[in-house]
C-alpha cells in the first residue's frame, strides 16, 4: 500500500475521533499532538480503532511510533499491506 493510501486510512480514523479538527493541513513531520487537540484518551481511541478496523494490535511500548503522521505511516504501512 503506498504512502498516501496508508495516510488516508489514518486520517479517516483520526477524523472520527478528533471530530472538531481540520485535518486538511497536517504536517507529517510534526507531532500530531502538537498540531491537533489530541489527548491520551484520543490515542487510546486510535489504537482501538486500528484493532477494530484492521485487526492491528499496537502494544503499549510501540505507542511512541504513532507520534507523527510520518512515523504512523512507517509503522502501520507494513501491517496494513
Amino acid at each position, binding site marked *: 500500500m503506498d504512502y498516501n493510501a496508508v495516510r488516508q486510512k489514518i486520517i479517516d480514523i483520526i477524523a472520527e*475521533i*478528533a*471530530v472538531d479538527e481540520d485535518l486538511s493541513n497536517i504536517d507529517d513531520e510534526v507531532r500530531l499532538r502538537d498540531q491537533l487537540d489530541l489527548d491520551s484518551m484520543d490515542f487510546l481511541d486510535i489504537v*482501538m480503532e486500528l484493532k*477494530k478496523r484492521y485487526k492491528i494490535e499496537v502494544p503499549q511500548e510501540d505507542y511512541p511510533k504513532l507520534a507523527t503522521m510520518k512515523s504512523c505511516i512507517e509503522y502501520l504501512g507494513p501491517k496494513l499491506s
Partner: protein
Amino acid sequence: MSHHNHTRVVITGVGLTAPNGNNLKEFREALLSQKSGITEMEVRYMGRLAVGNCNFDEEIYQKKKMRRRGTRAGSISIYCAHEALKDSGLSLESIDKERTGIYLGITEHGNVETENEIYELHQNSLDVSLWSHHHNPRTVANTPAGEVSLNLGITGPAYTIGAACAAGNIGIIHGMQMLQLGEVDLALAGGVSECTGTFGIFAGFKSQGALGSHQDPTKACRPLDVSRNGIVVAEGGAIFVLERLKDAEKRGAKIYGEIAGYHVNSDAVDFVLPDTQRQIQCMTTALKKAQMTPQDVDIVNLHATGTVSGDENECEAVRAVFAESDNTYINCTKGFIGHAMGAAGALELAGNLPSFADNKIHSCKYIENVDPKCALKNLVNGDPVEKEVNVILNNSFGMLGINSVLIVKKYSGK
C-alpha cells in the same frame, strides 16, 4: 426557612430542556397552551414506542469530541448549566469557581452506556478486548455533574444524588443545604435524565404492566384519566442557580422564588408500590418546616406518572392533606412531557415557577375522563386558572419508596 436554619435560599436562574421546550419561556408557553412534546421512536428490540425526547442543540456549549466522549446526561446537564448561569446574570468570569457546587439528582446513570457497549460486544463477536476504555468514566454515577465541572471549569464539589424519580427535588434540596452550611456560595442544582437511550427502562416498565401507550403518542401518558395505562419514558434536565438571599439581594439579582420548606422520607414497604401514609407525612412535614398550613398553598404539582395505582395513591394522599383548602389548585405535568425520571421534579417545578409573576396556573394535559378515584377539588383541567400565586408545593416520589416534597414561595422583598 426551617426552624433549624434561618439562612434563606432563593432561585436566581433557570436552565432547562424538556420535550416541549428548550428554555423556561418555551416550556411555560407549551404548558399554558397544551402543547405536547411526546413523539414516537424506535426503541432497540422493542419497536416504536411513545417517548419524550428533547431537541436542544448539543453543540452550543460543547465540542463534538467531548460529546462523543461523554454521555447524553452530561450533554443535557452542560446545556442546562450554561443556560441557568446565563439566565441568572452571572458569568463564568464573575463567579468563584471553587465556591460553586454542582448537585444533580438522577434516577439512574450508566444504563445507556452499558447497553450500548454490550450491543457492540455482540457485534464484535464477544471480543472483550474491543470493550471501550470510555466505559468506566461514562458510567460512574457522578458523570453528569462531572461533565459540567469539566466543561465550565468549576472546581467546587460536583456530584449526583441517586434518588429514583424523587431526585429532581432532592438535587435542589441538597444544593440549598450546602448553601446553608456555607460549603459553597453558589449552587447549580436540579435533576437530569437520559433514560430514553436505554431500552431496559422501557422493557422494565412494560414487564411491570406500566408502560403507557396510545395510537396517538401525544395521548400515551394520561395521568388521572380513567383510561391511563402507564408511564411514557422521557429525557430532560432542569438546573437552577441557587444563592443565599443576602448574596442575591446584594447583586440585585432577579429572584424567581424562595425555598420555603421541604421534606424527604421513605415508605419502607415495597420496591415499587407507593405508600399513601408516607406521602401524607412527607407533605405535612414539609408544610410544618415551612410554617404553613394547606390553605397557604396555591399550587400542588402532582408526581402523577400515569400508572393506575400510583396516581390513585397520590390523589388519596393529596386529598387527605388539602381537602379542606379552598385556596389550593392541583396540576400535573407528565401528560405533556412524559416521565423525565431524575429531571421530573426539577422540570415540573420550573414549569410552575412563572406563576409567581404571571398569576396563571397551568392545566394538566387535558384529561378526557377523570378517574373518580383521582377526582380532586380544584383540579386544573382545560384552560389555565387565573389566580394570585404565592406558594407552590411540588411532589416527587420514586422507586424503593423515596418521597420528596419541595415548597417554594414568591419572593416579596422582605
